[in-house]
Every structure is written in structure tokens, then in C-alpha cells.
């Protein structure tokens, strides 16, 4: 289906040129946009078709759970939601610490469909929300591009690019129910409204822009991107001497209303007037007032006096502003750069100071293959399109240029921000591609050929008159003479576009459509084999443990346990409390004797680890283990040392050569407990790390194995109760082993928690 999309573009051009009738054109455009939206939705359904309608990965499980809560309890309950089933024993003020836009959107759609008597499950709305919004994003890209150029094919191309480019699909496949699902639509649409407001100098459009900005703030933390980009655009325009009342009206309307709107979100609150990432917007707001005032004074007083006024006034205001800023920062009213944001500028910062940020793979810098993988040919059409923006260089083109530079810097620093770069790449690439195609597809029909030849000899064709104001129009456009040239370039572009569509389909199908909750592998005969260990284990937890059994696991799995197993967790993917995470990291990386009191103090009933050694599943806990150690070391540098987990030669090993600290750590023991018994003697091996393991499996004293999933991906251990005759667990266990007696430890009598 997506293949047909790219191939159709050339006939589309033909049809548009044939259909001179405006009604036909509009109809064609609508049909094309609907088809693009269909293709955008369809290309995101791989995972639904291959697996089932299921929520993906980690964060979406929390969003899903929150949506269910919202639908069940209503908006006000949701707003005040205190969740005591996460971050045990602290709990989390969920209603005040999330971006509610996504859940509210799904809730509204759900109630609307219910009102229309469409029986629909909230899960299906959540799964299909991202594809549905991708269709809207394509339309928003169409609108935005149409503001940049008069060529209508550019808008349609941009919509098509936006619909299927993997850079955006990566975050919006069916089941990827995350904030980005709706946020990219809001981002592009807010930018469109901003351009519109700026062009018209209209309060109405500015207010609409602020409204959608408010929606964006309610939906995604990435709203800071808009908060920084729009002021930057305004600033560049002022620097270019392009201050106008249109700019003043658009910006001040947007800023005043948008800031008020954003402050309605409890999670954002007073941040817009406090933190540094919001300061540019505030600063430019003041700056524009100043510039507007100066413009006014200049029109009112003679130029001589105005100069004196300018120097004194500007110097005084600048000095006062700087002093005020320094004073407020020193006084602690304005927060310093928040870590996540600071790490964008000083790239070494996160590595040294915030291991929890450095540990997330989304916060890594981007290597070049990732750009090509996500954008394919658009990546080299993009600079060409930006260059073409320099031709006319009106206010809206400056926006594209500023966005392109800003966006590509941030995408280079952080893989995750590829998402914010993608819209501008699509717009710029569409401008370049459409100009190329417009030039070389000019004479497709003989009727047009005659027309154009006459016009080009006159030099008064519609195209050249349009471009006569351009800077680089040292020569007028004459058009392309030979059919050979046209056929060659048009053919090459067609092939490239076809490859682009193939590439997008291939990338989406191979890289971005795995739910990561369910894994797929190929059997020797080529048939698909589904590995469903995660859901199997979570289901076991749900059915075999107490309603309030506390599960300790690394934070990656917190949301899934909450969503699928419905059990309280110690830490989850909302990493608001680093110390609590470090506590879990310490328990995992310490000896049993140290870990057991920690687990008792946190009332842990079960411990869950992910182990990929049997299957060769590389995203397991042993591979993440060093991050647990590092995060724990950040809080307890004397008790946990990263160095101790390496062999004397500095290698990270899990076999017989592993360091003693490694072998005694709880994580190691839990991962390899009883593992050697699966293999004949001397054959035990870990297929992820390619290590041969000793025949003697590690001995666990204070935990007992409760459940291991089919492929050993998830292993669940029960924390033993205190020994009923007061021995420590090691003694009790060795006593039992010595007597070869299997005696269940019964829970009896009053028990006292031992204090360290």
C-alpha cells in the first residue's frame, strides 16, 4: 500500500496539471491527502497484524493504566490521583506528575464513541491512537509546507514524507501509546499556527497557536522545544531588522496566552517563570516590548535625540535585566539548568553527574547510520531544501532555517530528539523534491510543452515571473530543453522515491514494529515462533501472589509489572527518586547478607530478574547490571564499587573468572541460579555473553525460586521469611543441605524484624 503511494506521486503531478479546474484540483488534493493518511495508518499496523492488538514496551503500559483509571474514575479523580501501588513505600502523586494530554485525549475519544453507541474497548483506542494521529500529522505537515511555498505539490510531498518516514514511525506504531503519539501532531500544527499568526499578524491565529501550545504542554515534556524555537525565530527576525507589528502581535499573543495555558498543568505549574529553559521565551517577550517601544519613540522624536535615548535606555535596561537575572538565580528563585536539559549543552555532564540519565539509551548521541536509517533520502534533500529557503527568505523561511539548525543539533546530541527533527526534514525535503520534480516534469503533456516553449522564449512564463524577485535569479528561468534530460532526472527521482518507500516499509517492518513485550523468532522451517515470556510471568504474578505483594525489579520493568501484573513495585520508569532506584541497585549488586535487610525494610515479597542467557536475549539484567552498580555507587560510593565487578584485567565477565563481588552479588546469583543444571556437565553456557559457566550454580540462601518462565527470560524469586528458630539464612540453608532434608519453613509465631 505504501509502495503505491510513492509511485502515484508522478501521475498526481500529471493529473493536477491536467485538471486546471480548481474544483477538480481540490477534490484531487483531498483524495490524495486521504490516501496519504490511509498509508500512514496502514504502515503502522505491522505489529497488530503480526502479533495482536497489544500495548508496547514500557512507558505505554503506564499510560494505558492511567487511561484506564481515568475512564473508570472520571477526570477529577484522575487529577487528584495518588498512586500507592508504585514506589513502595513512598507512593507517587500521579495526577500531579504526569502530562495528562494523552490520557484525556483517549478518554474523550472513548466517551465520544460510546455516546455514538460504538462499542469499543479502551485498549483498542490506546493501541490505535498513534496511527490515527499520524494521519493528522501528515495533514499538518501539508498545511505547514503550503505556507512555505506556492507549489502545491510540495505540501502533498511533505504530507507523504511525514506519513511514512521511519523517524516518526519509530514513535507512533500501533501500540506505542506514548506521549509522542499525539505530541508530534501538536508540534507541527502549533508551528503551522505560529507561521500563520506571524504572516497575518492576527490575534486570532496567535490565540489558536497558544491553545495548541497549551495542548502540547499538557501532552509532552518536549514542549520546551517550541518554547525555545519560537522565541529564537522571533529573535533572529529582529536581528535581521525584520521587526514588524505582525511579529509583535503574534508573539505577545502566543506568549501571554500560551504561558497561562501551560501553567494550568499541575506538573508544569510555575516552571515557565522559573526554570532556565523557559527563560528565552520570557526574555524575548521583554525584548520585543523594548523594540516596539523604541520603534514608537523613533517615530515620535528627532533622530539625534533618539540616538542618545537609545544608548542610555538600552544600556540601562540591559544592565538591570542582567543584574536581576543574576540576583534571582543567586537567591534561588530561578532554578539552575535541570540536569536533563543541561546535558544537551555540556555533553560530558550527564556522564559524570547523572548516571540515571546516561543509562537510558534514548539519551545517547546519534551516530550517522541512525540518521540515514530514519530519514533515508530525505537526509540529503534536507540541506537542499534549506538552501532553497534562502532564496525567498521571508519570515516563514527563516523559521525553517532556524528550526533546521536547532533541530539537527539536538538530534545529533540525543537519539530521541530525532523525532523533533523529522518534521522539518520532511518539509525541507519536500520543498527540494517538488522544485526538482516541478522543473523536470514540466513537459509531460504535449499541450503544456507548447505553452511552455512559447513562454520560455518570452521569459514571461508564470514560473519565471514568480521567481524574478529572487536573489540568485541572475538569469531568468528558461526551463529544460530536451526530453532526455527530463526523462533522466524524472526517472532517477522516481527510482529514489520508490526506494524511499521500500526503505520506510522495510525499516518499519523490521525495526520499529516489535512490541518488545512479545518477541518473535524464526523456527528452522521458517515459521514464526512467538516468545511470550514476559506476559507469561506477569500473568503468573497476577494469579499466584497476594494482591499487595511487593515486587522488586530494576526500574525498566516497573510500568509493565504495574500494568500487566497489577502488583505494587518499588521503582518504575518514572525515575523521580534517584535514591530509591539506587537502593534497588544496591540490593541487586550487594551480597545476600546486605541485600536481605534492604528487602525486608522495603517489605519486598518477590524479586524479578530478566535473564537472556538461555535464549540469547541481549537486553537482560546482567547487561544492564553495570548501570545498577553505577547508580548505586553514586549514593553509596563506599559500599558499592564499579571497579570490583571487573576482573583484575578490567573485563566484565560472568564465567568462572568473574570477580568475587560479581559472583556474590544478588543479581548474579538470581540470574544463574540452577542454570547449570539445564546442561550436561561442563556444557553450561550463557548465549548472550558467550561464556562457559561453571558447573556449580550459585547458591541462594535468603531467596527461593518461585517461578521461571518457559525460556528463562523472567525469573521470579520469593524472599524467604525470617527463620523460625532465629538462625540466619545461610546457617539454616546449610543445615538443611547437610541433612538432606526438604523441610518447608513454616510461618509461625510472632516474628521480629532484625535490625542491622
Amino acid at each position, binding site marked *: 500500500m505504501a509502495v503505491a503511494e510513492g509511485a502515484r506521486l508522478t501521475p498526481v503531478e500529471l493529473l493536477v496539471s491536467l485538471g486546471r479546474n480548481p474544483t477538480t484540483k481540490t477534490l484531487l488534493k483531498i483524495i490524495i491527502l486521504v490516501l496519504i493518511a490511509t498509508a500512514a495508518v496502514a504502515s503502522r499496523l505491522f505489529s497488530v497484524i503480526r502479533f495482536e492488538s497489544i500495548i508496547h514496551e514500557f512507558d505505554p503500559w503506564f499510560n494505558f493504566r492511567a487511561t484506564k483509571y481515568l475512564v473508570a474514575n472520571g477526570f477529577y479523580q484522575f487529577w487528584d490521583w495518588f498512586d500507592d501501588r508504585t514506589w513502595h513505600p513512598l507512593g507517587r502523586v500521579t495526577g500531579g506528575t504526569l502530562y495528562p494530554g494523552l490520557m484525556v485525549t483517549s478518554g474523550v475519544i472513548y466517551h465520544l464513541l460510546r455516546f455514538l453507541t460504538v462499542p469499543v474497548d479502551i485498549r483498542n483506542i490506546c493501541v490505535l491512537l498513534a496511527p490515527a494521529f499520524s494521519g493528522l500529522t501528515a495533514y499538518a505537515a501539508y498545511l505547514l509546507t503550503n505556507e512555505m511555498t506556492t507549489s502545491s505539490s510540495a505540501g502533498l510531498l511533505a504530507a507523504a514524507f511525514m506519513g511514512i518516514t521511519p523517524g516518526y514511525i519509530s514513535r507512533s506504531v500501533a501500540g506505542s501509546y506514548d506521549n509522542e503519539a499525539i505530541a508530534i501532531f501538536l508540534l507541527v500544527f502549533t508551528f503551522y499556527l505560529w507561521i500563520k499568526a506571524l504572516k497575518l499578524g492576527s490575534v486570532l491565529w496567535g490565540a489558536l497557536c497558544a491553545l495548541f501550545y497549551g495542548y502540547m504542554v499538557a501532552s509532552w515534556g518536549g514542549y520546551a522545544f517550541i518554547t525555545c524555537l519560537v522565541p529564537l525565530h522571533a529573535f533572529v527576525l529582529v536581528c535581521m531588522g525584520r521587526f514588524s507589528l505582525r511579529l509583535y502581535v503574534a508573539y505577545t499573543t502566543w506568549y501571554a496566552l500560551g504561558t497561562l495555558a501551560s501553567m494550568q498543568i499541575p506538573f508544569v505549574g510555575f516552571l515557565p517563570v522559573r526554570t532556565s529553559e523557559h527563560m528565552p521565551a520570557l526574555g524575548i517577550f521583554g525584548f520585543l516590548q523594548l523594540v516596539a517601544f523604541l520603534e514608537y519613540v523613533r517615530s515620535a522624536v528627532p533622530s539625534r535625540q533618539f540616538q542618545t535615548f537609545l544608548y542610555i535606555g538600552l544600556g540601562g535596561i540591559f544592565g538591570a535585566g542582567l543584574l536581576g537575572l543574576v540576583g534571582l538565580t543567586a537567591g534561588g528563585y530561578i532554578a539552575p539548568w535541570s540536569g536533563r536539559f543541561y546535558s544537551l549543552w555540556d555533553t560530558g555532564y550527564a556522564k*559524570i553527574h547523572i548516571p540515571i540519565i546516561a543509562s537510558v539509551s534514548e539519551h545517547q548521541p546519534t551516530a*550517522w547510520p541512525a540518521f540515514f536509517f530514519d530519514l533515508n533520502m530525505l537526509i540529503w*534533500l534536507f540541506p537542499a531544501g534549506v538552501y532553497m529557503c534562502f532564496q525567498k527568505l521571508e519570515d516563514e523561511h527563516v523559521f525553517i532555517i532556524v528550526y533546521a539548525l536547532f533541530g539537527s543539533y539536538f*538530534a545529533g546530541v540525543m537519539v530521541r530528539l530525532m523525532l523533533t527533527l523529522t518534521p522539518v526534514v520532511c518539509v525541507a525535503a519536500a520543498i*527540494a523534491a517538488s522544485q526538482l520534480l516541478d522543473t523536470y516534469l514540466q513537459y509531460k503533456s504535449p499541450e503544456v510543452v507548447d505553452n511552455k516553449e512559447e513562454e520560455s522564449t518570452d521569459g514571461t512564463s508564470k514560473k519565471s515571473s514568480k521567481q524574478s524577485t529572487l536573489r540568485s535569479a541572475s538569469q531568468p528561468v528558461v526551463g*529544460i530543453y*530536451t526530453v532526455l534530460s527530463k526523462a533522466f532526472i524524472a526517472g532517477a527521482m522516481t527510482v529514489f522515491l520508490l526506494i524511499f518507500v521500500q526503505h520506510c516499509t522495510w525499516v518499519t517492518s523490521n525495526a520499529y514494529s516489535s512490541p518488545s513485550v512479545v518477541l518473535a523468532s524464526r523456527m528452522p522451517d521458517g515459521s514464526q515462533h512467538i516468545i511470550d515470556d514476559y506476559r507469561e510471568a506477569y500473568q503468573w504474578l497476577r494469579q499466584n501472589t497476594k494482591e499487595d505483594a511487593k515486587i522488586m525489579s530494576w526500574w525498566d520493568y516497573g510500568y509493565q509489572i504495574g500494568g500487566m501484573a497489577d502488583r505494587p513495585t518499588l521503582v518504575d520508569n518514572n525515575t523521580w527518586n534517584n535514591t530509591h532506584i539506587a537502593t534497588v541497585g544496591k540490593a541487586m549488586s550487594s551480597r545476600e547478607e546486605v541485600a536481605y535487610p534492604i528487602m525486608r525494610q522495603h517489605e519486598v515479597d518477590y524479586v524479578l530478574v530478566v535473564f537472556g542467557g538461555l535464549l540469547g536475549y541481549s537486553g537482560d539484567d546482567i547487561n544492564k547490571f553495570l548501570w545498577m552498580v553505577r547508580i548505586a555507587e553514586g549514593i553509596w560510593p563506599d559500599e558499592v564499587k564499579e*571497579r570490583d565487578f571487573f576482573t583484575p584485567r578490567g573485563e566484565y565477565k560472568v564465567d568462572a573468572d568473574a570477580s568475587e563481588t560479581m559472583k556474590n552479588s544478588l543479581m548474579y546469583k538470581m540470574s544463574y541460579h540452577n542454570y547449570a543444571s539445564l546442561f550436561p556437565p561442563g556444557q553450561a553456557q550463557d548465549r548472550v555473553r558467550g561464556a562457559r559457566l561453571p558447573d556449580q550454580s550459585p547458591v541462594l540462601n535468603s531467596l527461593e525460586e518461585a517461578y521461571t518462565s518457559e525460556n528463562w527470560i523472567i525469573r521470579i524469586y520469593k524472599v524467604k521469611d525470617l527463620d523460625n528458630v532465629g538462625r540466619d539464612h545461610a546457617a539454616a540453608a546449610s543445615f538443611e543441605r547437610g541433612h538432606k532434608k526438604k523441610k518447608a519453613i513454616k510461618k509461625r509465631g510472632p516474628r521480629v524484624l532484625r535490625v542491622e
Partner: protein
Amino acid sequence: MRWLPALLSIVALPLGSFAAKSSSSASRFQTFHTQAVSSSPLKLSDSTYKKLTSAPRDYAVAVLLTALDAKYGCQLCTAFQPEWEVLSKSWTKGDKKGESRLILSTLDFAEGRDTFMSLGLQTAPVLFLFQPTTGPHAVPNPDPLRFDFANGPPSAEQVHDWLARHLPDRPHPAVYRPVNYVRWAVSTVSVLGVLGVVFKLSPYILPIIQNRNVWAGLSLIGILLFTSGHMYNQIRKVPYVSGDGRGGISYFAAGFQSQYGLETQIIAFIYGVLSFATISLAMKAPRTKDNNVQQIMVIAWGIVLTVMYSFLLSVFRGKNGGYPFKLPPFIVNSISIPNSI
């Protein structure tokens, strides 16, 4: 013969360290501390190292074993040396009385070859902290603590934190970075100078600043740099090129998540050529009046476009093994990328 001891002591003064040999740990500390106050960090040799770290001691010693000589090519050593000097200077300065009972010292490989041998050190730098064995702060384990240099050259503050953590209940003079007045003066003067020159030359510079072509060029360079993974090189400090193990040079790193410095430049060049071909085809060619020139131009840029894109695809196939798409002429996977890193 009253003058004899006096004379002896004068003779012995430069050899004060020898005199300290037989003395107690307290006086040894005093001697070394006095030296450290005058020049910190203390430069050690094999013999003074032994003396300073010999067993009954009621003070702590931090020794940086380093190899600063250019012939050893130890980048980490030279990178860390200024930080270490800042730390030791500010520590000694803040603790003139020696209340923290810590001596910061350096042993260069050139002077301490035997020590390196006896400790079996293969790498430098190594930072040891010898805890006191007697006195109020004595620790049971006499083995020195070793600082972990795994994450690149640490800052003085990081090492300071590490020392402070292991020397509790003692004063920890804060790291004080001396203000580099010369640098400030130089930068102020140069900024003012540049401003003056700009002001004087503004009639000539202004057209350049207001020239669209300049800005367009700068923007394109910026975009090409960022999209070809330049920031990754900055952050990860990747090597420029690397050997392929057979004496040749490997231009492309194996694997999807890694790259070399030269590799990103090649990629930026390819992107640049492709963009430029597009610009020429879309904007220059239709403005060419001469029929034949235009024909040649279109064909030439078209061939450049297809060949470069084909090359780009083949490079990408080399990075990403399973990538199925290819274009002529680079159908065969011509770029061999070693699988081992």
C-alpha cells in the same frame, strides 16, 4: 668541637630526607610536609617514595604514579597533570599546618622505574592513597586504595571528593582554582581588538554579514556536520581512523552504533555532494540558456547524483548487514568492514 654538629647539620640540610630516614613517622611527616608547602605536589624518586610510604606512619599519602615524558605517549597522564597540580596546590595551601596529615606527591616513571616494576604496574596514571597505619586515623588494611581512572581524566573536584571520602574527620581544604589573570587580560584585549577591527572595517564586513550566500553556506555546513554524526564524535571521542588488523586502514567502523571521525567526514561529503547536485539540477540547470550546456550539465549532475547515492547505499549496507536495497553501479558490497572491533 662545638662547631662540628652545626656544620654537619648544615651539610645534612639538603639531604634532609636522609636524615629523616631513621626518625619517627611524625618527624618524617614534618619534613615532607615542609617540602610540600614550598612545592606541591611533592616530586618523588624511588628512594623518597619508599621512605614516604614506609610502614609505620600516622599520616596519609596520595601518590600519583605517572609518565609525563612525551615518549611514553600517555595522554591521560598529561591531561590529568594540571588538575592534579591544582588539587595538590590548593590542598597544601589550605592546610599549611598539616592538620589533614595528607601528603600529595607525584612519582614520574622517569624517576621511579623501580617502583613501577616492583608494583607491577603496566599502565599509568595510577593514583594510590596510603592510609595511616598508626595514630587516630589508622585503618586495619595497609594496602593502598586505588583511584579508578576508567572514565577519562577526572577533574580536581572529583579526586578531591574521593580523597575526602576516604579521609573522614579531617579538614578537606576546598579546591581553589587560581584566576588566570594573563588569560583574562589577553582575552579582554583580543575581544576589544576584534571589536575595534570590526568597527573599523564595518563598511567591508557588513556586506559579508548581510550576504545570504554566506549564511546559506554556514547553515548548510552546520546541518551537514550535525546530521553526519559530528556531535557523536565530540561526545564519545571516537578515533579518527583505525587499523584493520592487516596493516591497512579501515575507514568505516563496524556496527550500526559506532563510527570513526574520518567516516563522518566522508558521509558529510557525500551528503554535501548529493545536496549540491540537487540544488544544481533544480535551480541552476533550468536557468542555463544554452541548450547543449544545459544538456551536459543535467546529465553530469544526474550521474553524480545516482553514483553518489548508490555509493551511500553501499556504505550503509556495510554498516547494517541485512539492508536489502541497492542501486547500480555499487551493487556489490565493495566496502568491507571488519567484523571485529
